[in-house]
């Protein structure tokens, strides 16, 4: 008996509020609008926090539940079938309870196993990996896989950025908030997209983190450590190389040729970096599916936003391959989809 294949039956996403364009962001932060366009290449993003007042309007749980609700409302999916929930995020609302359980609560789900994976850009794919493994085990037939992040927790609108260095500025203009969810099934249902392979591999032995997000407790809440630091130089150097390796490893694993691919979902760092990486990946026959220029880098929501966009275009027999790199501790991630 062969192991069951996981399928994506439906997808749902949630972006908080209206898109914030560069002009508005530039005005609030006091930075140069053109700089954002040229060096970041991101046009709009969404924030869960009011940009004017700094007031929190949506929690991560809110966004994840909204996305999940959309996925569960899709044709061919029954919320009552959900047997597990996996959430990948780097920015949980609280350390306890885990946000996944608040999401379950909002969705009215009970008596199911829940998992929350603490991870950055690879978290959504790690969640897919866990979901795939659970379905492959034969014990579960339907589950919910979610990814989301609320990066605006670190968007301090009170801060004067007029004299800030580019490396500091980037953190304010790169990110956005959002969530996405997919219903995984053991049998083809709904969208009938088979999850052919998932890659999730730590490759950071002996390497300094490319990205660090601190968290603060009562003892160190007044510590003046920067909450979010990135080694942009290392990211620019490493991520394209890793992305190429991921692409070829997935192809090799599936025994697919590069020109078999109809779609390519490249890593979504920023409009500019994603363009560069896509060039390096060099699969001209595949259509690129990207969203970061419109959504900002909203972490674990990105793969779901890409899949949502992909599903609009995918026809039977189409193949797609997604690549993601988590530069925190250099995690390679990716997955392959085929519509059947």
């Amino acid at each position, binding site marked *: 008996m062969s192991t069951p294949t996981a399928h994506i039956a439906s997808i749902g996403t949630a972006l908080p509020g209206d898109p914030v364009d560069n002009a508005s962001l530039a005005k609030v932060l006091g930075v140069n609008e053109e700089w954002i366009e040229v060096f970041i290449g991101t046009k709009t993003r969404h924030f869960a926090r009011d940009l004017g007042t700094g007031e929190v309007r949506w929690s991560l749980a809110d966004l994840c539940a909204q996305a999940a609700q959309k996925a569960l409302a899709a044709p061919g999916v029954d919320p009552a079938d959900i047997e597990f929930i996996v959430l990948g995020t780097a920015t949980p609302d609280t350390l306890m309870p885990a946000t996944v359980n608040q999401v379950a609560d909002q969705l009215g789900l009970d008596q199911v196993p829940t998992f929350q994976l603490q991870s950055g850009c690879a978290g959504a794919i790690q969640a897919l990996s866990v979901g795939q493994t659970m379905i492959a085990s034969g014990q579960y037939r339907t589950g919910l896989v979610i990814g989301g992040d609320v990066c605006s927790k670190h968007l301090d609108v009170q801060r004067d950025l007029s004299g800030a260095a580019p490396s500091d500025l980037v953190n304010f203009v790169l990110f956005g908030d959002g969530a996405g969810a997919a219903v995984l099934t053991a049998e083809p249902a709904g969208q009938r997209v088979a999850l052919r392979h998932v890659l999730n591999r730590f490759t950071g032995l002996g390497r300094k983190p490319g990205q660090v997000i601190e968290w603060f407790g009562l003892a160190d809440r007044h510590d003046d450590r920067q909450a979010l630091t990135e080694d942009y130089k290392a990211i620019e150097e490493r991520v394209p190389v890793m992305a190429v390796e991921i692409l070829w*490893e997935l192809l090799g694993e599936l025994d697919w040729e590069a020109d078999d691919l109809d779609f390519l979902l490249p890593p979504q760092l920023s409009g500019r970096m994603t363009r560069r990486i896509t060039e390096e990946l060099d699969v001209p026959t595949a259509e690129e599916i990207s969203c970061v220029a419109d959504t900002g880098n909203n972490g674990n929501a990105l793969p779901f936003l890409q899949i949502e966009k992909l599903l609009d275009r995918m026809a039977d027999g189409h193949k797609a391959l997604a690549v993601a790199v988590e530069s925190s501790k250099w995690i390679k991630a990716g997955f392959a989809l085929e519509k059947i």
Partner: protein
Amino acid sequence: MEPIAIVGIDCRFPGAPDTGAYWDLLMRSGDGVGKVPEQRWDADEFHSADGAEGHSNTVEGGFIGDADAFDNEFFTISPREAAAMDPQQRLLLQCAWRAIEDAGLSPQRLGGTDTGVFVGIMGNEWAQLHLTDYAKVTAQIGSGNGYCMTANRVSYHLNLKGPSLAVDTACSSSLVAVHLAANSLLAGECDTALAGGVNVAVTPALSIFYTQAGLSAPDGRCKPFGAEANGIGRGEGVGVVVLRRLSDALKDGQRVYAVIRGIAVNQDGRSNGLTAPNRWAQQDVLAAAYKRAGVDPAEVVFTEAHGTGTTLGDMMEVKALGHHHADRPGKPLALGSVKGNIGHTEGAAGIAGLIKVALALHHRVVPASRYATKENPALQLKQHGLRLLKAPLRLPSSPVLAGLSSFGMGGTNAHAVLESAPPAAARPAPHDKETAGGIGCGVYTVTAPGAAALRRNLAAQADAVAARRVSAQALAWTSNQVKTGHRYRFAVPAHDTADLAARLREAADDPDLLARLTAAPAGKPRTAFLFTGQGSQYGGMTAGLYRDSALYRRFLDEADDALLPHTGRSVRDLILAGDDDVHQTRWTQPALFAVEYALARTLTELGIRPDLLLGHSVGEYAAAVLAGALTLDGAARLITARGALMQQLPEGGGMLSVRAPLAEVAPLVDGEPLVGVAAVNGPEATVLSGDLGVLERIETELVSRGLTTRRLTVSHAFHSPLMRPMLEEFALVAREVGGGVPDIPVYSTVRGRVLDGEAMDAVYWIEHIGATVRFQDAADALLDTGPTHLVEIGPQPVLSGMVRRLGRRDRAGAPAHVLPVRGLDSGGRDVAEALAELYRGGAEPRWEAVYPAEERVPQPLVPYVFSDEHRYWAARRPTAAGPADSAPAAVPAPAAAPAQAEPAAAPAGVAVLERPAAPADPLSDTVQEVIAAVGGYETGDVFAHQRLYEDLGFDSVMIMELKTRLDERVTGLAHITVQDLLPRLKTVADLTGFLHESGATVTARTAPTAQEGRTA
């Protein structure tokens, strides 16, 4: 063939200064290629995009950093000689040293063995620069050039006596060197072999050649099997591996990176052209290697290709591999080439590939091949059963086979089949688990030829140790094996890894601390064991050591076993339980004996053998056993009887300590039949013993004279006339036990001097009971012989204080006091501290006794970090004008003229050699100037104490020159020959002294400047 194990690796390649960096470069698909460094040649001057005559089509290549840096002082090579040496010789020498250390071996201990040295090399550009200017050819230039010297120098400086040869088969040189090394091992010619390769581009000649031959990539980069492959990019590198027969490596518990299962070499013969690659010959060499390894080609998982990235070369190689792999079942053969990362390292190409494959098998992942994503479709890799590695390939935990090709331009091809190390050898485990041992704490040792070198290396060790999660004892054990042999010895106890890292870091940062933890012993230490007497005992003494140290447990148990038939109660249990009975003399005496015997035996087992012995009163019993004068059983019986008989004497006796010389106290005792002088411990320390009433009377008198007295808490009046009633019964036992003449000099506290052929027999031990303990006399006699270390054997330091209060001023300096047990809290750490002190002092501990078997596992340590302070390069760069304008003899690069010898850079406090300011002596000044000139030193860097051969790197050629120059500068040497000079050339001062004796005087003329001395 019998497998050959790769047990040690060191290398430097473009963008990768060491093995770790090389692996990192490979794993991140890094690019080590860049512009030709200014120092080599002016790349733009030689550049022509369309490859005009005499020009290269590229300005880039893979160059290693710091190719000019060389730690000549480490190898005691004079700056002048270093400057004349081909940098390939220098790099290889340092690389070989580090590779041996990486193999868990001490390079100095490998000296004298039949170890072979096999070096692949094809670049001879230094010689082309330096041997063409005939007027400037010196002796140093001669030995500084030539292929053979690269290998021979390693053999010379490391004193390796096996085969030593250089191999030139062009680009396959270093894999052919590995082939010869493997065969030499298999033939039993040597038991260890260093195999390696080196390539440094000093001139653009080969870049021009590749361009003119249509083989040079315009971007200076090899793109192996790539669609954009357009030729060779030159690369530099140096790599050395240490090879053993696998059976030997396993027997010796060495860590094995990977194993060579088969290796073969052949030739194209008369093929399509001398330099054209030949697929048939390549196919055959693959077949020969597979056959020799006894493997089916389909079992090979990946192959490191020659992969130069030339259209024809790539095509031939794919076809040759395809012959063996096109029809293989399962996955295609994974293919890659390191040339994409570092360029074609020519003479070092084979070793670059070998090290990559060995590391891949070691780390169980094969790095992706750079430029693989755009593979050349014309090669039809898939049809040939091949796939280019576009992403790293994880290897299974089961045994994996790999191939490695290296092909020479003249048609000499080599292929090797490697296999992952046998599981047990990849991470060696101890083989002998049965004997428990060790002291429960390691001693981390680092040695270096100078204080600055020591600091540099301690800092490197600190960083590396901090990054490890392995037992500090295993790290310490490896340090004892590897980091040995240099004059400056650093040692600290190693209890846990974090603490060890912190101590190394502190020592590297704090010159005063470093000075305290370092010594440069002149010779072997002269060690005295001092055994304490009664009064030093306490409940629970040495319990910590008993807990920590299996070795100490063994000997305390042994003593307990010997005592038990006589005591009827376990003295060990009494001690460890902290029982107050230990203060009753019947228990005190056997208990102290047991502790001292066990401690002394622990130390001797650790390799600390006493040269001198002294025991204070009952301390002499354990000393006598150690000296072989009493057997353990005899001493156990005797000491038990002694204690028991004394215990039976009526109480009422006492002891009085007086702070006064014997002469002042003695008259009060004379004529007192019930009181005697029990001990003379020092010039102001006299102890009386006897009847309490009489003592009280004497004490009153002493106090009235203003003397300080103190009553000792004792049950009996030891060493007094009150002991007489027990003598007869004790004598019966003593006569049965007997006793002999000590094998080790014993400074007797009965006689107050060394025993001179006198037996420690019944007569002695009977006399011992009532005799005055003449510690002062005995200790003075012992100290007169100049011991370097006084090791106190007892449960707490007592005698070291007494020795200090003797008030001696020994000219040779006070001996060090070594205290293996300091008190109630002492354990293995204090013994380790004592051992560290003794090691610094020149002792050679038996390290295998220091650690239990499970800790005696080799752990990789950072190899020696060489100084990059001194730099040497060709004085003039090659120019397009051609070789007619060749460079003069090399001189040290002005940016870093040879600085002072390292000891001079030492901070105050570190054992710096003495340099007193001498009164003006023209002859001495002249000698120093001449020596500086011959060696290429600054005059100010030559000192009277320096040894010509060991410190200044003089050789016979230099001695000849020294004599010639002395003749020019000194009058009155006409009758003296070099032969006369030779015996007097130990140090600079010796030479000066000899010249003085010979009546030589400085010839009247102005002294040459340092600059003249240098360039002459």
